[in-house]
């Protein structure tokens, strides 16, 4: 018994020498709420504990009570950064269930918006990265470049963020030849500016902050099932666009390559994103050159089309800017849904954070967290409990309570 008491005391002493810092849920480095409870000794991180679910809105269950067209706009609002990925993924599942084949032109336009969205998302993240390391000027410059893409979105679809481009069986807005010219001209400018941003990211003080930081090696990347640029930054060659081509990617396969880097650090992930912007520009140029003619959507109104979708289920995959996005859709045959399940890329990537963070400094937290590009509005739905490493996993009262809450959340 005496022995036990003494161990208790040393544990208390350990508790005493470290400081617990809550990172979030409301933190200027994060635009969205997540709570990382971080234990530090001095500046060094010794443990990370995550709590999610702050923006849990119950979208899946809401969708199950609405008709398909309403759901389309609802799931667009899962996220404002890759809204088009979500709708595309959902629509593809519906089209598969209803055996509706969109026209070639529609598929190309979908792809066009998809790649523009990737550019916008990557530029956004590069800006955020700069902001996290205190480089406000680079942040301002990057976001200024990004405005060009948003202008294009507004011209083509009528809104800067939620494009509402997809509809069942096609797309809603056509690309006029004048717009095509504008897109081309803007792409040239963006290419130039992105080169500039790249050179700024190799600048001395920037390099100091992001090289050899938050390393996730190849094996860990495989083990933790990370996806998207996070995985590609660790040398894992996965990309849904190549592996399971959808939309028009089958025909565009030759126009882009998958960017991978071996180092697995923050810089590698950043660089992957920078070069993906160039690849996206290549894809867009190819699309503009080869855009087929034809109608962009079925003539019938959406209710007719919704009626054509029978009871059935489908799984659909797309490569969102942050990685593989998966939808499971089960329709009821009456224009509604029985079940919708969304597996988002950030959700797969978040778990790798602990591996990256432990051993780094407080100053690195925002940088590392930003490097997996965690936008959490789609991800916030589970509670992850990390007990102290090296000890057996204990379920204490607190985590039990959290698990109960998790069950209740899922209802």
């Amino acid at each position, binding site marked *: 018994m005496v022995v036990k008491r003494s161990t208790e005391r040393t544990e208390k002493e350990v508790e005493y020498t470290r400081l617990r810092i809550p990172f979030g*849920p*409301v*933190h*200027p480095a994060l*635009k*969205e*709420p997540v709570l990382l409870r971080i234990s530090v000794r001095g500046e060094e991180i010794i443990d990370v504990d995550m709590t999610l*679910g*702050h*923006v*849990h*809105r*119950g*979208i899946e*269950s*809401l969708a199950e*009570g609405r008709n398909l067209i*309403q759901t389309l*706009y*609802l799931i667009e*609002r*899962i*996220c*404002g*950064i890759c*809204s088009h990925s979500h709708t595309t993924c959902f629509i593809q599942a519906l089209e598969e269930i209803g055996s509706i084949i969109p026209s070639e032109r529609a598929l190309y336009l979908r792809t066009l918006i998809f790649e523009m969205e990737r550019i916008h998302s990557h530029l*956004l993240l590069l800006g955020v990265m700069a902001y996290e390391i205190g480089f406000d000027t680079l*942040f*301002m*410059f990057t*976001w*200024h470049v*990004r*405005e060009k893409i*948003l202008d294009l979105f507004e011209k083509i679809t009528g*809104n*800067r*963020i*939620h494009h509402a481009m997809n509809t069942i069986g096609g797309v809603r807005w056509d690309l006029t030849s004048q717009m095509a010219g504008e897109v081309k001209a803007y792409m040239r400018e963006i290419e130039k500016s992105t080169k500039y941003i790249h050179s700024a990211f190799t600048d001395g003080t920037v390099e100091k902050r992001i090289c050899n930081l938050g390393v996730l090696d190849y094996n860990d990347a495989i083990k933790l099932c990370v996806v998207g640029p996070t995985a590609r930054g660790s040398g894992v060659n996965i990309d849904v666009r190549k592996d399971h081509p959808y939309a028009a990617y089958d025909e565009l396969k030759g126009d882009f390559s998958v960017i991978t880097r071996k180092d697995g650090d923050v810089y590698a992930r950043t660089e992957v994103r920078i070069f993906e912007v160039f690849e996206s520009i290549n894809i867009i140029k190819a699309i503009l050159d080869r855009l087929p003619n034809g109608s962009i959507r079925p003539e019938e109104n959406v209710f007719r089309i919704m009626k054509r979708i029978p009871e059935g289920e489908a799984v659909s995959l797309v490569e969102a800017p942050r990685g593989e996005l998966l939808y499971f859709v089960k329709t009821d045959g009456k224009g509604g849904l029985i079940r919708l399940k969304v597996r988002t890329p950030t959700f797969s990537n978040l778990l790798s954070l602990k591996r990256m963070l432990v051993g780094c400094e407080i100053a690195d937290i925002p940088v590392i967290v930003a490097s997996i590009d965690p*936008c959490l*509005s789609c991800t916030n739905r589970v509670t992850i409990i990390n007990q102290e490493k090296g000890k057996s996993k204990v379920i204490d009262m607190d985590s039990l309570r959290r698990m109960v809450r998790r069950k209740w*959340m899922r*209802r």
Partner: protein
Amino acid sequence: MKSPWIFHLNTGSCNGCDIEIVAAFTPRYDLERFGCLLVGSPRHADVLLVTGPVTRQMLPRLIRVYEQIPEPKVVVAVGTCASSGSPFLGSEMVEGPVDRIIPVDAYIVGCPPRPEAIARGIIMAVMSKFR
């Protein structure tokens, strides 16, 4: 008042409004022209920008942040989902809209509103409160 300092709270938004708020501070729109600053601590803030329909988990935080802001303060609901909860109304997880929980001085409807509209909303809210 010529220096509204802004604290932005995401209560379950889709990011759309959040990035537009940040965009409003970038060179193109430059809210700092009006003396606005995006601050990171509610203690420094005068204006609370709320985005999102207020989820159950964020409800207590919203109240706490609201209380942490020193008087006089202004609350602006940015976006449709903060103003009225739509399209997330009906979910068990959503407690909003914002004005059901704290008093709101101005609503900016839009999904997301353009940065210009956000600027106008902030200025309008500040003017109504501090005249």
